[in-house]
């Protein structure tokens, strides 16, 4: 850290430091005690600013666990939603989320990694490349509901996929693609050039270098990025509402063309009912959702740490 080694404030001594000594004539008055007190106050203000976020997160988690824990049980995971809170579960939403996650990974990973390989390894520095790059960084900032509208018009209506899992997964693919591309590019960039040169020296073509050397070496980094992108997809409700338009579904999808719901939509449905029991169910759903996200992120961190120790060898 930069500031750690910075010199301490000068010692508070000398006549100029006395409070009330406002300096006569043109004499310089450092007002040291005032400035140091000010510094101490500012320190606590800044500390408080850091604490706002941490305390907010803490209260949120405690609140969710207190409200939701009594509703957690096996049947909550294995049963379908119901009008009776004590019988309700999130089975259809859980299956929908798993389907969406799987299909999205299936479509987004090849495209995202392909785009990353092109931009890092093949593209020359020209206008087209810079247009693609600016475009990707802007796509990352488009609100998720706008992707929902795109999916609704393009996949649901024009391509006539209906309000299906497939339309949902394609929409989600477009949403997470910038994340996958960015992460994959970083992973590919981190592969040492000596690997490539060694492979070329053995007579490899460029595609052989990419396929047999660069991609295997970048795989852990790519995997980490993919998991983080999918965990973004798992939490998204807005675009899925635009596609699915369903909040209450009592069957599990078995086919990519089936209608579906996902966990954040089910939670939204429970939150928007006025009865306290459904709020409890919502909190229980949030616990399950956060546990899924937590485990995905743990896997991502594990993969990344393993990768880091390997490259240091």
């Amino acid at each position, binding site marked *: *850290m*930069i*500031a750690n080694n*910075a010199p301490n*404030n000068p010692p508070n001594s000398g006549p100029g430091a006395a409070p009330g000594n406002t300096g006569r004539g043109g004499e310089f008055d*450092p007002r040291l005690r005032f400035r*140091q007190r*000010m*510094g101490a106050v*500012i320190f606590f*203000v*800044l*500390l408080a*600013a*850091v604490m*706002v*976020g*941490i305390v*907010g*997160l803490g209260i*949120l988690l405690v*609140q969710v666990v207190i409200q939701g824990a009594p509703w957690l049980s096996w049947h909550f995971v294995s049963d379908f939603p119901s009008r009776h809170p004590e019988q309700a579960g999130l089975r259809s939403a859980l299956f929908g989320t798993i389907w969406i996650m799987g299909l999205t990974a299936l479509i987004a990973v*090849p*495209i*995202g990694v*392909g*785009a990353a390989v*092109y931009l890092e390894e093949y593209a020359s520095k020209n206008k087209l490349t810079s247009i*693609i790059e600016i*475009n990707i960084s*802007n*796509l990352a900032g*488009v*609100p998720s*509901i*706008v992707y*929902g*509208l795109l999916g609704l*018009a393009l996949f649901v*209506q024009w391509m006539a996929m209906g309000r299906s899992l497939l339309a949902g997964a394609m929409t989600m693919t477009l949403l997470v693609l910038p994340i996958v591309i960015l992460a994959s590019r970083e992973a590919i960039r981190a592969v040492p050039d000596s690997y490539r040169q060694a492979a070329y020296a053995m007579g490899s073509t460029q*595609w052989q270098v*990419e396929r047999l050397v660069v991609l295997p070496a970048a795989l852990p980094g790519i995997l980490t990025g993919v998991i983080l992108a999918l965990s*973004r997809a*798992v*939490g*998204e*409700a*807005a675009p899925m*509402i635009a596609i699915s*338009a369903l909040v209450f579904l009592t069957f599990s999808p078995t086919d990519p063309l089936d209608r579906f719901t996902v966990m*954040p939509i089910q939670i*939204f449905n429970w*939150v928007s009912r006025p009865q306290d029991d459904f*709020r409890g169910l919502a*909190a229980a759903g*949030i616990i399950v*959702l*956060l546990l899924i*996200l937590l485990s995905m*992120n743990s896997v991502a961190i594990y993969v990344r740490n393993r990768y880091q120790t390997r490259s240091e060898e």
Partner: protein
Amino acid sequence: MFKRNRDTDDVAGKAVKWVLLFCALLSVATTMGIVITLLVQAWGFFFEVNPWEFITGTRWSPILKPTSFGVLPLVGGTLLVSLIAAALALPVGLGAAIFLSEYAHDRVRRVVKPVLEVLAGVPTVVYGYFALTFVTPQIQKAMPDLLVFNALSAGLVMGIMIIPMVSSLSEDAMVAVPRSLRNGAYALGATRFEVSLKVVVPAALSGIVASFILAISRAIGETMLVTIAAGATPNLTINPVESIQTMTAYIVQLSLGEAAHGSIEFNTIFAVGLLLFVITLGMNLLGHWAVRRWRQKYE
């Protein structure tokens, strides 16, 4: 035995390059897809409603008769919630960034930064739940006339949500400020907070401004939090205790309704979506421009 088939390798290699280029171009196609679908679908709407009336009208009642398509109440609701969020997140995020960059020990920073970033990874329905079932009842204890659905608690919770956007980007900008600037100020007898506020912050200003713009843009596009906690009453007001409706919440509300595809009510969501896209795109371009400007300065 070693055997080499150079011809098939070359052909495959060339084909692969085109396939990979196609993957990269899909992102450009996505942007064009967004623009085209929004324009085409909104066309049906603007065919029947004068765009000027849409932009300047102050009453939004797309379903209840007499219908009126003035989008300002939705824009006003969006701005109200975003301003409340910004009022919380900008000073707090900047303060956290200064603390992490100028005051915190490395060990503290390595723990606190990821914890703050967890805030950005929590699904937004969770924040909606939190605003509706915890924050609103707490504020109601102090302000009994606060409605169940209101802009205030949605804005405050959204502020917490976007803190990491402000703090991470601002901190990156501050860390990039050359050490010699700090040392020069210390040599003149400045205290640490003077160095932070009067040297580092001004030097990192364009990065900080970029983080502000991107965070507000995120707040404007945020959907589930405001759908759950801010209400569904298009209402042109600056009173934060009232129930409002944002552009995004309207899109969700109508998506869940029974409007027939192709009807004018249905096409309203594309007109509103187009406006939302234009606003956030403009802010993002501005933010990225500011980031680039600051990078050029110190690299």
